[in-house]
């Protein structure tokens, strides 16, 4: 902290260069350590995904892979079934995401822009769902899906995801819609626009960015979900990426490292690449989801 205050006290100081360097040294060292802690596990993962079994067992952890062939990856996709898992995740996540956003924006509009008695209560009711742990709804849903003969398909995942995505999406969309000046809707009314035209041509364009941000946040929730997919996938060919990865160990025994690392790497890289391009939006969206009190 002493470093902090001195540094702040004279930002454009005329102190000699070596002094400045020394003073900043602890901060620099701390930052370097921080970055190593954050980034090294991923570097180690990527290097490991190219290593062969005997390299894991006999070489030190910092050794580079002997070859850069993609054998581990092809094994993860081939015998590991990673391709099927990714396909299942895609089939489930994107339709769910579309429905979550569509239903969420529409409900947000009805609750925030439209005027009727009891809308505050309904909004609160949606919000209460954020607190309830998913465990509280698993057993009835399991029974219901079984009775409806949906067990064995991917429908239970889609239906559950859409419902679980509702509270946060409705709440966030209502917040964003609140920020639109009321005059916009008054003007539209004077021009003779009906509710649905207003929804489509006034409200939607104004919250386009917000929809994208919320969609991004929900994407990460759904893609990374384990609990729901673990509960409702009954056979190996329905597994999503996360459930598949969890069972990777069993399939190869705990000792086959290479394909395992390749599998983890593929799973990590997907979200990492999205983050690389959209990090500012992701950071904004994920933190917005939590400041609701």
């Amino acid at each position, binding site marked *: *902290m*002493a*470093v902090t205050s001195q*540094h702040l*006290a004279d930002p454009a100081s005329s102190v000699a260069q070596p002094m400045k360097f020394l003073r900043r040294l602890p*901060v620099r060292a701390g930052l370097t350590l*921080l*970055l190593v*802690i*954050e980034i090294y596990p991923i570097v180690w993962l990527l290097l*490991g995904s190219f290593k062969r079994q005997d390299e894991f*067992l006999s070489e*030190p*952890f910092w050794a580079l892979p002997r070859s850069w062939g993609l054998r581990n990856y092809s094994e993860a996709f081939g015998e590991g079934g990673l391709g099927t898992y990714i396909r299942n995740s895609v089939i489930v996540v994107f339709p769910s995401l579309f429905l979550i956003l569509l*239903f*969420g924006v*529409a409900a947000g509009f*009805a609750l925030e822009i*439209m*005027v*009727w008695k009891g809308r505050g209560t*309904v909004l609160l*009711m949606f919000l209460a769902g*954020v*607190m*309830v*742990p*998913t*465990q*509280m*709804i*698993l*057993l*009835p849903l399991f029974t219901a899906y079984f009775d409806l003969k949906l067990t064995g398909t991917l429908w239970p995942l889609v*239906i*559950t995801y859409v419902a679980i995505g*509702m509270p946060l999406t*409705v709440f966030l969309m209502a917040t964003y819609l609140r920020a639109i000046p009321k005059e916009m809707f008054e003007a539209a009314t004077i021009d003779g626009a*009906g*509710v649905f035209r*207003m929804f489509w041509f006034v409200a939607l364009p104004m919250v386009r960015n917000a929809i994208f941000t919320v969609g991004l946040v929900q994407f990460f929730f759904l*893609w*990374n979900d384990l*609990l729901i997919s673990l509960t409702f996938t009954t056979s190996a060919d329905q597994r999503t990426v*996360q459930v598949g*990865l*969890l069972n990777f160990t069993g399939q190869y025994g705990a000792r086959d490292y290479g394909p395992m*690392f390749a599998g983890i790497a593929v*799973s*990590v890289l997907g*979200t*990492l690449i999205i983050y690389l391009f959209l*990090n*500012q939006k*992701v*950071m904004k969206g*994920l*933190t917005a989801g939590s*400041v609701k*009190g």
Partner: protein
Amino acid sequence: MHTVLGNKRAVVTLLAPALLVYTAVMLVPILWSTAYTFYDGNAIRGFKFVGLANYREFFGDQIAWDAVWFTVKYALVLTVLQVGAGFGLALLYVFVLRRASGVIRTIVFFPVVLPTVAVALLFRRLFEAAPSTGPVNAVLNWLGTGSIDWFGQPGRSFWVIILMDLWRSMGFYAVLLYAGLVDIPEELIEAARLDGAGGWRLVRHIVLPLSLPILLSSLIFSINGTLKVFDTVVALTNGGPGSTTTPMTLYMFRTSFTYGEYGYGSTVALMLTTMCLLVTLMIFRSTRRDITRG
């Protein structure tokens, strides 16, 4: 204006899909699950009404209490650490790195978006002792201590779980708290500094009180999230060794789906839900008081 925006049919059309799916898949199952707590059995072998037997079983069940204790311990320790580390990082961003903090902020944040399962499997390897020596044990060997079997003993497993979640989430809390710190008016800090407050005193008397609201909402968010821990534990230790790192979420899952006890599983789920609600209400009330006070 009000006649157009008060159109009842439009309200129903726009609200119905969200409300229907939310009611059918969340609200009704919550009540349904509560009803299960008075029954014994499952969907296949049928149900038998048992009154309060499940609750009596819960209060006398040592494993259930271990799960409650683990959940509470995990939630408290991780909340203190991740909000604390987040606040430390936020101070670093605002007061030390200042304009240059963008890249660091982005890098420290990224683990939040990674799939928990993948991160957990990776951390298993990072902390592995045998047959392959993971980086953590390799560093320990280099420092002169022998390899530690991190997953063979409850206390150590607990700390690996905590460390991993701290790695994943501190960047998130840092950004959350950073947003709060940036909102503190520059003049206020300058004025305090002219009065001779610097370093620790500046943080203690100016920055900390002013960021109290955002700190408290971080605490609520963190407690509410950590009480529901599931993915991390399942993928990292699977509750072991034995059942020593089993949180309530996993205990509920095992009871329900491994042993097919829907009634008792629902009882555990209801206890967890009650805990989440109580904690949120408690913190929420104390937050309100503090804000009105000033």
